[in-house]
């Protein structure tokens, strides 16, 4: 019997052994790669060219931007031992704040980047508040961010007066409607955020500290790492990605709305965890997260191409998640 089958830590899967730091990690994420490939094969078989076209791939990627960008930030927070339920609400609040008549008037005066900056600033501020509540208020992340979820969504509704705020700024819409080399701007931004996230997590002291803080906060503290401050940074980083995601959503919908990002938190956390980041902290991979996001989005796309009913989709989704995770685990265990 192998050691890992004997592993009794039921609540946590046997961590993938080997290279602790994310290398490009195709091998490490083999299960996920297989799941994605199988999904693609199903897509091609059932929908043929409609699935395999460039247009469709770009559709999937465009859809993935919001979840994907937030998931990059969430990977940091979860790796650092936390969790954030408020991401959807923060996206909503950022999008609303950045599209009020006031902000839009400002944007008309000083340029559309004003909207982008206000979205990102609001996101970062909410994230920082989360971080402060968790690190210095010592409120469990689950509860602190649940409170933020309620408050931020409520505030977004109050500010927007429950109306959808339409973006009139031409510069903003034009910039994000562009498709240099045939690739939509928001997909390029998604790629940049992912690469930056990978670099930050795997090649910097900040990333190293994140692993340490999530793996054993007490040991990290005794090694001289400012655990509380680092925790604030982590949540602020996630808040910032929420702000960026809000901009993506604003450009896609040309609106800001308090209903944006509803239930985004579940999708994001699911993608991150399926990607192999440990919910208990200390282990995380941006590449895995990317695969997690792509698997979910491709799944939805294949379902849509095949006209499946929502209910059937849901049943199938649950089963597919279970199979993908079991597959990934078996393969990870085999290799060690």
């Amino acid at each position: 019997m192998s050691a890992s089958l004997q592993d009794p830590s039921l609540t946590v899967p046997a961590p993938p052994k080997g290279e602790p730091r994310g290398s490009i990690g195709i091998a490490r994420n083999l299960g996920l790669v297989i799941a994605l490939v199988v999904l693609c094969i199903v897509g091609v078989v059932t929908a043929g060219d409609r699935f395999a076209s460039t247009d469709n791939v770009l559709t999937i990627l465009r859809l993935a931007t919001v979840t994907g960008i937030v998931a990059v930030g969430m990977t940091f927070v979860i790796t650092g031992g936390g969790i954030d339920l408020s991401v959807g609400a923060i996206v909503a609040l950022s999008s609303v704040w950045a599209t009020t008549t006031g902000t839009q008037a400002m944007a008309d005066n000083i340029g559309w980047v004003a909207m982008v900056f206000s979205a990102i600033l609001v996101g970062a501020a909410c994230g920082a508040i989360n971080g402060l509540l968790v690190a210095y208020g010592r409120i469990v992340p689950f509860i602190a961010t649940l409170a933020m979820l309620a408050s931020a969504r409520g505030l977004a509704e109050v500010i927007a007066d429950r109306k959808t705020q339409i973006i009139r700024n031409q510069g903003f819409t034009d910039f994000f409607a562009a498709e240099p080399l045939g690739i939509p701007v928001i997909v390029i931004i998604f790629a940049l955020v992912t690469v930056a996230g990978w670099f930050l997590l795997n090649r910097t002291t900040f990333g190293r500290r994140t692993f340490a803080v999530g793996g054993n906060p007490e040991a990290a503290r005794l090694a001289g790492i400012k655990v509380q401050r680092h925790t604030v940074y982590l949540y602020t980083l996630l808040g910032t990605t929420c702000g960026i995601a809000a901009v993506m959503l604003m450009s896609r919908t040309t609106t800001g709305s308090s209903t944006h990002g509803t239930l985004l938190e579940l999708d994001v956390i699911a993608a991150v965890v399926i990607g192999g980041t440990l919910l208990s902290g200390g282990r995380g991979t941006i590449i895995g997260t990317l695969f997690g996001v792509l698997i979910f989005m491709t799944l939805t796309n294949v379902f849509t191409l095949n006209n499946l009913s929502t209910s059937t989709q849901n049943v199938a989704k649950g089963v597919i998640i279970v199979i993908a995770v079991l597959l990934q685990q078996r393969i990870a265990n085999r290799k060690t």
Partner: protein
Amino acid sequence: TNSSSDDDTSASVTKSNTDNDKSGDKVVIGFSAPAADHGWMGAITKAAVAQADKYDDVELKVAEGTNDVNLQISQVETFINDKVDAIVLLPFDGAAMTSVARKAMDAGITVINVDREFDSPFAARTTVLGDNYGMGVSAGTFVCEDAKGAKDKVVTEIAGIDSLPLTQERSKGFKDALKSCGLDVDNRVAAEFTVESGEEAASNLLQAAPKIDYLWNHDDDQGVGVLAAIKNANRDEFTMIGGAGSADVMDAIKAGNSVLKATVVYPSTQAADGVKLARLLVQNKSMSDLAEIEVPRQLKLAAPVVTKDNVDTYLPSAFRS
């Protein structure tokens, strides 16, 4: 509730008796709507599918219902990639779906906007609108008439999902109509279009207002829960008005033994009409009962009040929640 759905929906979707229904060129229509997480929205999709099934020249591609605009946008993008002939779109949020609808129109696809209006006239060829503001006005007017000028009546309101623009419109219409006869809303709570949330919101509301004269509930699906809460609280001193017009509610109005005395219809056949119009537009046909050659830009459906007196007219086309 025991009668099967297909009977209900086929009763509510019809072919017209003109040669418009004759088989023509094949039309591929994409359909996308919010998540069918309550009866009215479920009925919308079913009616659209049933309508499409009546035509052998229509192929309907139904995308997963979703309350996530980001996902709904990608569904429309998929339809554009697929080069469908027409898209019938009931947006989760009209404004948010405007730009992608426009993209579809630019790609030469006929877009039919259903229920929640786009923000730009260029984003849809034709719009089939339910009248949310009108619904509120109808309910308010009913209260005004029933109150016969009394100014001290306690009026309460159970809204649907409060963050949706349509809820805001309904509430505004209600408020405006009440104002015209000197009444106002004394207590207002919001539920979430589900039976459970209706029961919870109503239970608390009934405690907040110990004596009520009128209660308008925006949605008959959550109304099942509202009625249960009223029964649990043993309250019957007021008149309740429903919204949307489900068959169960109409049954109750007809029976006349509950607080429920009226409901404001919000047609669940809008999307089915959208499918019909899409087909006409793609096949270059006109609406046969109009002298006009082109299909109109906009159709606004009425929001009639159903009471015991006229319930038999509306019952056959009502949806089962």
